[in-house]
């Protein structure tokens, strides 16, 4: 009987789903950080994904649908990645002791992947479920209210670190795993990739922290008007969303 092809397929799918999620998170951070350009900028970004600029009216269900798709990919990737987690305490403690003795960068990075991945099971699920069920609330005031008055800021702070570390480490690891862009000098390429990985992590963490601070400031200022939707200067009345 031939050996199952499933391990090969699962390995490819784990990498593919991880690359999709990591690249999506980069784009996501750019969209979220549009708040740094002003409330109007973020309002337009949020409405753009509801089709407002195409259909003339917002359809939050579009965001729900996409959030559901990302949620499915997230669960799929988590299920595939879990195959590599230490299966029991013996494996966990063996690996931990090994990593502690070896003091080897990439071995430690994998442990960071395990910890951040595990944390995201919970942190990411809360966020994705909220985006799926409350898409119309995404906006300068709605998001800021959620972060401050609804107490999402500790969750987003932890999620930010987990996502940015996991995503950039993951992309680096996928590249060396499949030998992408290796060139003639694999050691030099790996060194450069690692350097780029840290730069990317620091950049997105800084962007994320600045954005979170901006939402917190808006949320604090808007605390007394919780629930009110933002109306950009170009509109006189709030939009009626269509589900």
């Amino acid at each position, binding site marked *: 009987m031939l050996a*199952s092809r499933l*391990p090969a397929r699962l390995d490819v799918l784990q990498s593919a789903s991880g690359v999709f999620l990591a690249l999506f998170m980069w784009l996501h951070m750019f969209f979220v950080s549009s708040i740094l350009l002003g409330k109007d900028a973020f309002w337009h970004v949020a409405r753009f994904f509801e089709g407002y600029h195409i259909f003339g009216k917002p359809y939050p269900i579009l965001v729900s649908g996409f959030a559901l798709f990302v949620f499915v990919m997230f669960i799929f990737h988590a299920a595939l990645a879990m195959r590599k987690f230490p299966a029991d305490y013996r494996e966990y403690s063996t690996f931990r002791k090994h990593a502690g003795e070896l003091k080897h960068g*990439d071995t430690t990075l*994998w442990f960071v992947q395990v910890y951040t991945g595990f944390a995201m099971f919970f942190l990411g699920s809360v966020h994705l479920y909220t985006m799926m069920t409350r898409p119309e609330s995404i906006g300068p005031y709605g998001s800021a209210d959620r972060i401050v008055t609804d107490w999402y800021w500790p969750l987003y702070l932890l999620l930010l670190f987990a996502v940015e570390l996991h995503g950039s480490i993951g992309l680096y690891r996928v590249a*060396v795993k499949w030998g992408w862009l290796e060139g003639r000098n694999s050691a030099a390429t790996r060194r450069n990739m690692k350097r780029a990985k840290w730069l990317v992590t620091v950049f997105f963490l800084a962007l994320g922290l600045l954005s979170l601070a901006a939402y917190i400031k808006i949320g604090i200022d808007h605390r007394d008007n919780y629930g009110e939707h933002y109306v950009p200067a170009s509109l006189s009345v709030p939009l009626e969303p269509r589900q």
Partner: protein
Amino acid sequence: MSKSSDQTTGRETQTGVSDQSARRLTIKILRHNPQDSASEPRFEAFELDEAPGMTLFIALNQIRDEQAPSLQFDFVCRAGICGSCGMLINGRPGLACRTLTSKMAPAITLAPLPVFKLIGDLSVDTGAWARQMGERLKTWVHQESEPDIDRLEERMEPDRAEAIYELDRCIECGCCIAACGTARMRRDFVGAAGINKMARFRLDPRDERSDEDFYELVGSDDGVFGCMTLLGCNDVCPKELPLQTQLAFMRRKMARVK
């Protein structure tokens, strides 16, 4: 050769030239004899003067000659060719004969390589591991027909021969296995030494096996898809084999098997 003596330290060097900067090394060794039921794993510390050009292999011999006649460790070639003296040096796998004490802090900790069967102290049985790996992965040239041993072998492109030789430099010292987090957690994982062997035979034009045949040997979570790309193997290999490249290469080839 007349030996000179340093007035301050009174130490002499092997070359006869006094060396004021000679250090006192403390080498802590994990000792255990699994054949002896009364033996408990324990660290024993040995002190000795560092000599110029001293390797851990030289230091270990000196300790055995002068302080611990029962100390067990392996060596054959003393030149990084036989792969016998692999051990954990300050927690990192390496060859004792290729490690200069001058490159290290004066406190050094040595332990046997994990994963392999312990013979005693720093001596482990990498041979048994390599043999089972070889049998499991069928690490020899496979041909459909019996080779004619009276005929000259088919010629091979020099570049191809060179590439095969590059991978054949593996001395099966076990360092890549001991540095592999996956191999530490999962005993059935073939490790970089095994996957490198497969890459070597896949390159060999005399080996008639197809990628489908190689998939039967390493196309599983105990094989190339079990590798988590921690790259400890690549980074400790004393022969500096391109293990990162070979692991990625075999993964790509095996993932394409229909």
